[in-house]
């Protein structure tokens, strides 16, 4: 059984996270985690993103998942959404590409043009 204090702490953490997730001011990285994405290696891509963010101690970026967006042949797909800027989708994102995208686009604001894919 949990103490009231423990439950309160869990609640506060969840609330803080929810606020962060709902806020429009934070950068978001969306990883395609449909069946097609996972089969193409999205778990490893997501791991690499989380690892790169942790290594750089970046706490204000939200990483979320989405399902199939109809571009299965381009999976793993990640989309970077930054406040006030057009969202950018990247295709066939390996672990290595994912680390580069975090460093270049998320941290330094430089889109990695050669890996960008057109979306509808």
């Amino acid at each position, binding site marked *: 059984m949990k103490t009231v204090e423990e439950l309160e702490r869990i609640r506060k*953490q*969840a609330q803080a996270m929810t606020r962060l997730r709902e806020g429009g001011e934070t950068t978001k990285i969306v990883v395609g*985690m*449909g*069946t097609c994405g996972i089969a193409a290696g999205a*778990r490893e891509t997501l*791991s690499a993103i*989380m*690892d790169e963010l942790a290594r750089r101690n970046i706490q204000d970026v939200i990483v979320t998942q989405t*399902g199939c967006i109809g571009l299965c042949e381009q999976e793993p797909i990640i989309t970077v959404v930054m406040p006030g800027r057009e969202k950018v989708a990247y295709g066939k994102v390996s672990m290595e590409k994912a680390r580069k995208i975090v460093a270049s686009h998320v941290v330094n604001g430089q889109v990695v043009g050669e890996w960008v894919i057109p979306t509808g």
Partner: protein
Amino acid sequence: MRELSLHILDIAQNSIEAGADNIEIVVSEDESSDVLTIRIADDGSGIPAEILKSITDPFVTSRKTRRVGLGIPLFREAARMAGGDLEVRSAIGEGTEIKADFRLSNIDRAPLGDMAETMALLIVCNPEVNFEYRHTRGKARFVCSTNTLVEILGDIPLGSPSAVPVIRKVIKEGLEHVQVS
């Protein structure tokens, strides 16, 4: 998919999309009966009866009912290839339970794979969902849940990227204790 842990990740995504607050993932390996069972249960929105009838048919479910897709048929194939099968139970407003079983020793059984990675990512990317993961092997047993992990994490927020290596390590060590094959 190469690993059963990837199927688990895939099926759990359906639970998340169904708005589940609680997701239970149970893996049991029983060498005496040569059976591996994987069960994923949620309290999400549930699957309408007319879709449930054809849920394991990839041709019926693939496009019109996109939110169901190919995940369940692929998981069922993985089970059938290894001398087992998959069943889906669901009720609108109550949730969904997916159970797959495999012959543990079947040569075509995919390896379980990296459960620590699957669970760590599910938990950190969905901090508002309460996960419970139970893994048994014979009499040995490992249990962890979002709540117990929050305690272990202390000041590290559950949804933070820094939580991933901590959770991965906890689960890895727990599974070593159970001697997962």
